[in-house]
Protein backbone atom coordinates (compact mmCIF):
# COMPACT_ATOMS: atom_id res chain seq x y z
CA UNK A 1 0.00 0.00 0.00
CA UNK A 2 1.59 3.26 -1.12
CA UNK A 3 0.08 6.74 -1.23
CA UNK A 4 0.43 9.58 -3.71
CA UNK A 5 -0.13 12.86 -1.87
CA UNK A 6 -1.44 15.71 -3.99
CA UNK A 7 -0.80 19.33 -2.93
CA UNK A 8 -2.24 22.25 -4.91
CA UNK A 9 -1.73 25.11 -2.44
CA UNK A 10 1.03 27.63 -2.04
CA UNK A 11 3.07 26.76 1.07
CA UNK A 12 3.47 30.48 1.74
CA UNK A 13 -0.28 31.07 1.86
CA UNK A 14 -1.81 27.92 3.34
CA UNK A 15 -1.01 25.07 5.70
CA UNK A 16 -1.90 22.19 3.35
CA UNK A 17 1.71 21.71 2.13
CA UNK A 18 3.14 21.45 5.64
CA UNK A 19 0.30 19.29 6.90
CA UNK A 20 0.96 16.93 3.99
CA UNK A 21 4.69 16.75 4.73
CA UNK A 22 3.97 16.08 8.40
CA UNK A 23 1.71 13.14 7.53
CA UNK A 24 3.41 11.60 4.48
CA UNK A 25 5.02 8.31 5.44
CA UNK A 26 8.37 7.02 4.22
CA UNK A 27 7.73 5.30 0.90
CA UNK A 28 4.96 7.66 -0.14
CA UNK A 29 5.22 10.23 -2.93
CA UNK A 30 4.21 13.89 -3.08
CA UNK A 31 3.04 15.54 -6.29
CA UNK A 32 2.91 19.34 -6.32
CA UNK A 33 0.41 20.83 -8.76
CA UNK A 34 -1.14 24.29 -9.31
CA UNK A 35 0.13 26.76 -6.68
CA UNK A 36 1.64 23.79 -4.89
CA UNK A 37 4.68 24.03 -7.17
CA UNK A 38 5.91 26.99 -5.12
CA UNK A 39 6.76 24.43 -2.44
CA UNK A 40 9.66 23.09 -4.49
CA UNK A 41 11.56 26.35 -5.05
CA UNK A 42 15.22 26.28 -4.20
CA UNK A 43 16.45 28.82 -1.66
CA UNK A 44 13.11 29.21 0.10
CA UNK A 45 11.92 28.00 3.53
CA UNK A 46 9.28 25.62 2.06
CA UNK A 47 11.90 24.18 -0.30
CA UNK A 48 14.14 23.49 2.67
CA UNK A 49 11.28 21.79 4.51
CA UNK A 50 10.51 19.69 1.45
CA UNK A 51 14.09 18.41 1.41
CA UNK A 52 13.78 17.39 5.05
CA UNK A 53 10.50 15.53 4.47
CA UNK A 54 10.20 11.82 5.05
CA UNK A 55 8.26 11.14 1.85
CA UNK A 56 10.34 9.10 -0.56
CA UNK A 57 9.97 11.14 -3.71
CA UNK A 58 8.61 14.53 -4.74
CA UNK A 59 7.26 15.39 -8.17
CA UNK A 60 6.21 18.70 -9.73
CA UNK A 61 3.72 19.10 -12.56
CA UNK A 62 5.63 20.68 -15.42
CA UNK A 63 2.72 22.61 -16.95
CA UNK A 64 2.02 24.34 -13.64
CA UNK A 65 5.69 25.10 -13.04
CA UNK A 66 6.18 26.63 -16.50
CA UNK A 67 2.95 28.61 -16.32
CA UNK A 68 4.31 30.34 -13.24
CA UNK A 69 7.62 31.24 -14.86
CA UNK A 70 9.89 28.58 -13.40
CA UNK A 71 11.92 25.71 -14.81
CA UNK A 72 13.74 22.70 -13.46
CA UNK A 73 16.75 24.84 -12.51
CA UNK A 74 14.62 26.62 -9.87
CA UNK A 75 13.79 23.39 -8.05
CA UNK A 76 15.37 21.91 -4.96
CA UNK A 77 17.48 18.83 -5.53
CA UNK A 78 15.91 15.45 -6.37
CA UNK A 79 12.51 16.82 -7.31
CA UNK A 80 11.29 15.31 -10.57
CA UNK A 81 9.19 17.04 -13.21
CA UNK A 82 6.26 15.13 -14.72
CA UNK A 83 3.73 16.04 -17.39
CA UNK A 84 0.02 15.16 -17.21
CA UNK A 85 0.78 11.69 -18.58
CA UNK A 86 3.23 11.27 -15.73
CA UNK A 87 0.56 12.47 -13.28
CA UNK A 88 -1.78 9.75 -14.58
CA UNK A 89 0.91 7.09 -14.29
CA UNK A 90 1.75 8.18 -10.74
CA UNK A 91 -1.91 7.75 -9.84
CA UNK A 92 -1.82 4.29 -11.40
CA UNK A 93 1.40 3.33 -9.64
CA UNK A 94 0.13 4.18 -6.14
CA UNK A 95 -2.71 2.42 -4.34
CA UNK A 96 -4.24 5.58 -2.95
CA UNK A 97 -4.33 9.25 -3.94
CA UNK A 98 -4.85 11.70 -1.09
CA UNK A 99 -5.49 15.38 -1.81
CA UNK A 100 -4.47 18.07 0.67
CA UNK A 101 -6.90 20.91 0.02
Amino acid at each position, binding site marked *: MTTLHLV*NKSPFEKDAFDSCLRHALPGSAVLLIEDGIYGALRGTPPGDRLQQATAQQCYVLEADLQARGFGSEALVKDVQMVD*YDGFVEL*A*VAHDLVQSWL
Partner: protein
Amino acid sequence: MKFALLVNEGPYQHQAADSAWHFACAALARGHGISRVFFYHDGVYNGTRLGVVPQDERHIPERWSALAEEHGVDLVICVAAAQRRGILDAAEGRRHGKGTDNLAEGFRIGGLGQLIESGIEADRLLVFGD
Protein backbone atom coordinates in the same frame (compact mmCIF):
# COMPACT_ATOMS: atom_id res chain seq x y z
CA MET B 1 -7.61 1.41 -14.95
CA LYS B 2 -10.80 3.21 -13.93
CA PHE B 3 -10.68 6.64 -12.34
CA ALA B 4 -13.42 8.55 -10.52
CA LEU B 5 -12.96 12.30 -10.03
CA LEU B 6 -14.45 14.67 -7.48
CA VAL B 7 -14.46 18.39 -8.32
CA ASN B 8 -15.12 20.73 -5.38
CA GLU B 9 -14.74 24.18 -6.94
CA GLY B 10 -16.48 26.13 -9.66
CA PRO B 11 -14.90 27.12 -12.97
CA TYR B 12 -12.40 30.00 -13.30
CA GLN B 13 -12.19 31.18 -9.66
CA HIS B 14 -9.97 28.20 -8.80
CA GLN B 15 -7.80 25.99 -10.99
CA ALA B 16 -9.34 22.77 -9.65
CA ALA B 17 -11.76 22.28 -12.56
CA ASP B 18 -8.94 22.84 -15.06
CA SER B 19 -6.68 20.34 -13.36
CA ALA B 20 -9.42 17.72 -13.20
CA TRP B 21 -10.21 18.19 -16.89
CA HIS B 22 -6.56 17.94 -17.94
CA PHE B 23 -6.15 14.83 -15.84
CA ALA B 24 -9.25 13.26 -17.39
CA CYS B 25 -8.03 14.00 -20.92
CA ALA B 26 -4.57 12.57 -20.20
CA ALA B 27 -6.04 9.45 -18.61
CA LEU B 28 -8.39 8.82 -21.55
CA ALA B 29 -5.58 9.42 -24.05
CA ARG B 30 -3.53 6.74 -22.30
CA GLY B 31 -6.36 4.24 -22.56
CA HIS B 32 -7.66 4.49 -19.01
CA GLY B 33 -11.32 5.03 -18.18
CA ILE B 34 -13.08 7.83 -16.33
CA SER B 35 -16.05 6.15 -14.73
CA ARG B 36 -17.56 9.35 -13.37
CA VAL B 37 -16.83 13.00 -12.60
CA PHE B 38 -18.80 14.11 -9.57
CA PHE B 39 -19.30 17.83 -8.88
CA TYR B 40 -19.78 18.89 -5.28
CA HIS B 41 -19.67 22.13 -3.27
CA ASP B 42 -19.16 25.07 -5.68
CA GLY B 43 -18.10 22.45 -8.22
CA VAL B 44 -21.74 22.32 -9.31
CA TYR B 45 -21.21 25.65 -11.10
CA ASN B 46 -19.20 23.75 -13.73
CA GLY B 47 -22.56 22.55 -15.02
CA THR B 48 -24.13 25.86 -16.03
CA ARG B 49 -25.02 26.38 -19.68
CA LEU B 50 -25.43 30.15 -19.24
CA GLY B 51 -21.73 31.05 -19.23
CA VAL B 52 -20.58 33.51 -21.89
CA VAL B 53 -16.83 33.40 -22.33
CA PRO B 54 -14.62 35.63 -24.53
CA GLN B 55 -13.46 33.91 -27.74
CA ASP B 56 -9.82 33.83 -26.62
CA GLU B 57 -10.56 32.11 -23.30
CA ARG B 58 -11.27 28.50 -22.49
CA HIS B 59 -14.95 27.60 -21.94
CA ILE B 60 -14.87 25.28 -18.97
CA PRO B 61 -18.47 23.96 -18.97
CA GLU B 62 -18.30 23.31 -22.74
CA ARG B 63 -15.03 21.43 -22.24
CA TRP B 64 -16.82 19.08 -19.86
CA SER B 65 -19.77 18.68 -22.21
CA ALA B 66 -17.40 17.71 -25.00
CA LEU B 67 -15.76 15.12 -22.74
CA ALA B 68 -19.17 13.59 -22.07
CA GLU B 69 -20.09 13.54 -25.74
CA GLU B 70 -16.80 12.22 -27.10
CA HIS B 71 -15.93 9.72 -24.38
CA GLY B 72 -19.23 9.02 -22.67
CA VAL B 73 -17.94 10.33 -19.35
CA ASP B 74 -20.71 10.46 -16.75
CA LEU B 75 -20.88 14.03 -15.37
CA VAL B 76 -22.92 14.09 -12.17
CA ILE B 77 -23.88 17.25 -10.29
CA CYS B 78 -24.84 16.73 -6.65
CA VAL B 79 -28.51 17.61 -6.26
CA ALA B 80 -28.26 19.03 -2.74
CA ALA B 81 -25.29 21.25 -3.48
CA ALA B 82 -26.81 22.31 -6.81
CA GLN B 83 -30.16 23.34 -5.36
CA ARG B 84 -28.51 25.61 -2.79
CA ARG B 85 -26.52 27.29 -5.54
CA GLY B 86 -29.12 27.56 -8.27
CA ILE B 87 -28.09 24.87 -10.76
CA LEU B 88 -31.22 23.08 -11.99
CA ASP B 89 -32.13 20.68 -14.75
CA ALA B 90 -35.48 20.97 -16.54
CA ALA B 91 -37.30 18.65 -14.14
CA GLU B 92 -35.97 20.43 -11.04
CA GLY B 93 -36.77 23.81 -12.57
CA ARG B 94 -40.37 22.74 -13.12
CA ARG B 95 -40.71 21.06 -9.75
CA HIS B 96 -39.61 24.21 -7.92
CA GLY B 97 -41.64 26.56 -10.11
CA LYS B 98 -38.61 28.42 -11.44
CA GLY B 99 -39.88 28.43 -15.02
CA THR B 100 -36.44 27.69 -16.39
CA ASP B 101 -33.29 25.62 -15.98
CA ASN B 102 -29.57 26.11 -16.59
CA LEU B 103 -27.89 22.70 -16.73
CA ALA B 104 -25.38 22.26 -19.54
CA GLU B 105 -25.39 19.47 -22.11
CA GLY B 106 -23.92 16.19 -20.92
CA PHE B 107 -24.37 16.84 -17.19
CA ARG B 108 -26.99 15.19 -15.02
CA ILE B 109 -28.23 15.77 -11.49
CA GLY B 110 -27.61 12.93 -9.03
CA GLY B 111 -27.38 12.04 -5.39
CA LEU B 112 -24.40 11.86 -3.04
CA GLY B 113 -24.54 8.09 -3.17
CA GLN B 114 -23.34 8.23 -6.77
CA LEU B 115 -20.01 9.64 -5.66
CA ILE B 116 -19.46 6.92 -3.07
CA GLU B 117 -20.63 4.32 -5.57
CA SER B 118 -18.24 5.45 -8.29
CA GLY B 119 -15.41 5.76 -5.79
CA ILE B 120 -15.98 2.18 -4.68
CA GLU B 121 -16.19 0.83 -8.21
CA ALA B 122 -13.23 2.79 -9.56
CA ASP B 123 -9.62 1.80 -8.98
CA ARG B 124 -8.70 5.31 -7.86
CA LEU B 125 -10.62 8.38 -6.71
CA LEU B 126 -8.95 11.78 -7.16
CA VAL B 127 -10.22 14.93 -5.45
CA PHE B 128 -9.69 18.36 -7.02
CA GLY B 129 -10.53 21.40 -4.92
CA ASP B 130 -9.22 24.47 -3.15
